[in-house]
């Protein structure tokens, strides 16, 4: 029983981690709390639903397409809207993203209706057993996709020229600018990468859970909790935070009551903010400010 709960928690945690990594990157590099993150996740889910129906392919195969679309959206969103608020005040950019989230949520209700939707791949009801534990094929493929994508992002940040520039900007914006980095361009690229990964997370979420336009705040809050638990600005931090959150919520639902995962989640959040505001893997540049 406990093993099954732990396994479920880890699967859920992997998905939380993927859904939070974009939020974490934006927070770490731009210092913007992107309250429209949940909307980007949902856009990914709806796009995957549309594409997989239109092209008659497996939802996981739409990942490159969805990521490309969200990359473009993210770049434009940061360059033409958020950039104007970033320089003024922290609260301003946060409220701006909230305003955009409200608008997009309303548009999604018009376009896709407020009903619950889900993406059903062909292997939806397959499950298999390993060492006495039951795994659904859907959840396992979702987890695998999450881990692969997180690995890709970590590699991108660590080894590619773009990743190096992003990390440099995050650590010392002024110094990066002095070295010839076009900071605005890097900000927009960071946002674009984050949006793309949010979209990918949307696909994975869409496969395992039903979703509706009203869910966006839940995914934004989840991302925030994951980032606070794990640490800001790194895929590894998001992974640790996500796994912790996944374990905490399944364990609470199993042993305390199905109504209490959110209570545990926010208690963990507040506790973590108090004890270690940088998160478990926090770096110096992400200090509480």
């Amino acid at each position, binding site marked *: 029983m406990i093993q099954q709960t732990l396994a479920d928690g880890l699967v859920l945690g992997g998905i939380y981690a993927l859904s939070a990594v974009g939020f974490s990157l934006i927070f770490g590099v731009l210092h913007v709390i992107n309250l429209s993150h949940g909307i980007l996740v949902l856009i990914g889910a709806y796009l995957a639903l549309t594409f997989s129906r239109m092209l008659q392919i497996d939802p996981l195969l739409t990942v490159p397409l969805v990521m490309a679309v969200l990359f473009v959206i993210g770049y434009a969103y940061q360059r033409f809207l958020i950039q104007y608020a970033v320089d003024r005040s922290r*609260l301003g950019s946060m409220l701006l993203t909230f305003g955009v989230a*409200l*608008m997009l949520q309303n548009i999604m209700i018009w376009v896709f209706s407020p009903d619950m939707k889900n993406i059903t791949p062909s292997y939806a009801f397959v499950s298999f057993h390993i060492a006495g534990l039951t795994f659904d094929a859907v959840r396992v493929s979702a987890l695998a996709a999450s881990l692969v994508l997180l690995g890709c992002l970590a590699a991108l940040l660590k080894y590619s020229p773009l990743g190096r520039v992003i990390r440099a900007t995050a650590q010392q914006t002024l110094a990066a600018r002095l070295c010839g980095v076009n900071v605005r361009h890097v900000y927009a690229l960071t946002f674009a990468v984050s949006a793309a990964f949010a979209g990918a997370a949307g696909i994975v979420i869409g496969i395992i859970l039903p979703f509706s336009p009203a869910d966006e705040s839940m995914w934004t809050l989840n991302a925030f909790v994951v980032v606070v638990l794990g640490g800001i600005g790194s895929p590894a931090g998001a992974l640790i935070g996500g796994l912790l959150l996944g374990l905490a919520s399944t364990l609470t639902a199993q042993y305390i009551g199905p109504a209490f995962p959110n209570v545990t989640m*926010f208690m963990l959040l507040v506790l973590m903010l*108090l004890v270690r*505001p940088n998160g478990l893997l926090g770096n110096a540049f992400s200090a509480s400010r």
Partner: protein
Amino acid sequence: MKPYAPLFVLLCALLLAAAPGVLPPFYVRVGQITLYSAALGTAWAIPGGFAGYGSFGNAAFIGVGAFAAGLTENQFASLSPPLALLLGLGAGAAACAILSAAIAYPILRLRGTFFAIAMLGVSHVCSELNNNVDALQGSLGLNFPAVTMANLAPEAFFYELYLIAGLAVLCVAWLIQRSRFGAGLLAIREDEDTARMLGVPTERYKRIAFFVSAVLTGLLGVIYAHSLGYITTDSVYRDDTNLNLVVFSLLGGMGTLFGPAIGAFLLVFVTQVVLGRLLDFHLFATGLLLVILVLAAPSGILGFVRTRTRRRSAMAPAE
């Protein structure tokens, strides 16, 4: 604060107090929401605007106040209406006082965004606990005894009650702003570490501001619950309240005395009266308003006006 300002406020209050006599009931109801929002916004701004500790979770105090009042009043069902209301106000204030005193020390160690989001967490935890612990009757709902007077329509009664409460909150905020304590809060907002170094008791000041704001918000929550007559968790712990309180200050002018009230008047007017018939369009319009606001007038309407007048007269009356 200019010398004619108190007179002006008094005049406005008298005009507002006479309004239910001439307005149709729908507008009296809108007036209730406006005054309630203005009062909540002003209470929010005591730590939020003056000291820079903007909370995203003041609905926690509305909910805790309302439920404490309801549960207490239902224990003493035989009391006469005015006494029941007073008892409820006392219970709500006490509950909020205890809650805010308990969380003030840990949560005020956080700053800026982290404080705001931690407060959102507090609001959600209170809401979920209230909803899921059976003794608190959050999901079942609570009925409130009718407290209106016989010779006054219910909507007019609550309108006047909100008006009195709003003036009281404004008065508290004004007294704080002009005191040494208020100057200390301002110093905390500008630079907390320097203020502390220069001998401002920052910890104590922050805690008092937080405490005062929580108790005032709780009292308003009690009145709100009575005006609804029946509440569940969802009707008092509302995330849109959490957000709107920030927007009021931002719209009117962060850190000013009248800013939150002006912002509340404007926002409620726009959303309830102008957009009242366009429910499908509601979220979109609110979002658009926020976006325009942040881009066009980042320091609010009062800030906008002040920079204009300052440019014209070249004298800078520092607040």
